[in-house]
């Protein structure tokens, strides 16, 4: 009986291992975005470009794994009642690496002038914003891995994801305000580029929070 019972978990365990891989790649992609920003701060646009190709590669790998997981779930892994929520959660995780890539792509379209870069990086708000996005994703990994360990483990991390997301939101507003305060002094295209870059990057933390909210739904459905 026990052997049969645990063999029922095999396929699902494999899916969870894949989810873990997808999350690791996503975290790496967001981390590379942080590195890219450091290059930008140093006005090294070539290094920024090189680093983008790393983000692009990681996003593709995460995407492939996401597709594999979706296939497994559609083939019948997991109980019917939670499949839809799992797929939604994975979609949110996939959106994180997409956002990391898309935001970097905005700055890649054209090199913003040094003046605006120096102005934006004059304080740490933008770097802090990205640190919070990164931490939100890292905590999300804890939330999702927690599903393998028990609901209390997941609960501990869910509130932390939310805290990071709120902090990221606050910092985003501060950075945007700062940019638009002196918008007339810069090239308008560069201003719009940074505005789009920050808005898209903000989706990293938003999607991490959305994914952790879905974990709450999974817990509510599964354990009630």
């Amino acid at each position, binding site marked *: 009986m026990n052997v049969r019972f645990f063999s*029922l*978990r095999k396929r699902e365990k494999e899916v969870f291992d894949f989810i873990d891989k997808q999350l690791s790649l996503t975290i790496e992609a967001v981390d590379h975005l942080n590195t890219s920003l450091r290059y930008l701060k140093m006005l090294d646009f070539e290094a920024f470009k090189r680093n983008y190709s790393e983000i692009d590669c990681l996003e593709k790998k995460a995407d492939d794994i996401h597709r594999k997981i979706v296939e497994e779930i559609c083939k019948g892994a997991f109980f019917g009642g939670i499949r839809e929520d799992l797929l939604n959660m994975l979609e949110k995780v996939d959106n994180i690496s997409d956002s990391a890539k898309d935001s970097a792509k905005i700055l890649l379209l054209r090199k913003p002038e040094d003046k605006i870069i120096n102005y934006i990086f004059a304080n740490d708000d933008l770097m802090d914003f990205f640190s919070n996005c990164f931490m939100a994703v890292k905590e999300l990994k804890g939330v999702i891995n927690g599903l*393998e360990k*028990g609901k209390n483990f997941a609960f501990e991390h869910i509130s932390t994801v939310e805290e990071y997301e709120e902090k990221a939101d606050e910092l985003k507003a501060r950075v945007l305000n700062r940019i638009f305060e002196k918008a007339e002094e810069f090239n308008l295209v560069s201003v719009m580029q940074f505005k789009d870059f920050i808005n898209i990057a903000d989706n990293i933390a938003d999607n991490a929070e959305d994914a952790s909210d879905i974990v709450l739904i999974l817990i509510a459905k599964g354990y009630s």
Partner: protein
Amino acid sequence: MPYIVLLALLIAFVFGWNNSGLFKGSLTSSGLLSYRKSTILISLGLVLGALMEGSKMGKALIGSITENTTNIALLIVLITTFLLMLSFTIFHIPVSLSHVSVGAYVGANFAIGLSLNTANLELIILSWLLVPVFSALITILIYNFIARIAQRFSLLTLDAFNRLAVILIVFYINYALGANNVGLIKGLYMPLINDPVLLELMTIFMAVSAALGIITFGKRITKVVGEDLIVLSPIRVLTSMFSSALLMWLFTQFGIPISMTQAVIGGIFGAGLAKRYVMFNRAMLYEVIGSWIAITTISFILSMLIMKVFM
């Protein structure tokens, strides 16, 4: 006799079409087992239930409500049961084989003036009234126990538990249905077949016929009973289904025919009440309760009228 045998097989087919769709749906919609495997599991449950414990229902009608009956009365009971089961099933209304056949049996025998054992009849009706209540209570008890244990599980273990439980419970439900409901119909043709081998073969054919009914048309009734009535989590659905099967099996031990639909609905409410909040479709509930009373009454009247025509 050939007509009676044919009618019994047809009733089993319509019974499978109407009732057991509920339980096949759990397997196929959750994607747990393939269509073929779930069909085998259900058929196995029905056949084993009918073969191993179906004879306990042998005296549920003949020998309980009346001392004896006539062949023509038996024919009328089977015709009425078949016609009503078929009509309600065509209109996608879950109908209880026990209600229809007991109503028809009382009607036909009442028409020919046979004395009815009212004490036993009252016992059956009382059981019908108590089944949803018992089912709700058992579900609350089992749910509270399972939900407490489940808190310690990881989502993976819980998921595995749910999937294993669905397979076992669906088998058990069909086993109980085979024993109680297929056994009830078996009790109607039992006096006409003296050969014990033929009798067992006939039981297998009945169960296979019911399984064919499930395979062919099961899905629509599933939705009426399960999805449209109430919103529940997997653990609650599973505990309500298990309680229903357990209750039907217990009543089989006393030879009392009961309705799985009634038990399931009681169980579903029990599962909802266990957490004090529940979203249910009131109109759908009234429709189902109304149909229980109406079906038994219609079955009684129809059977009596047909009997009068034949007399």
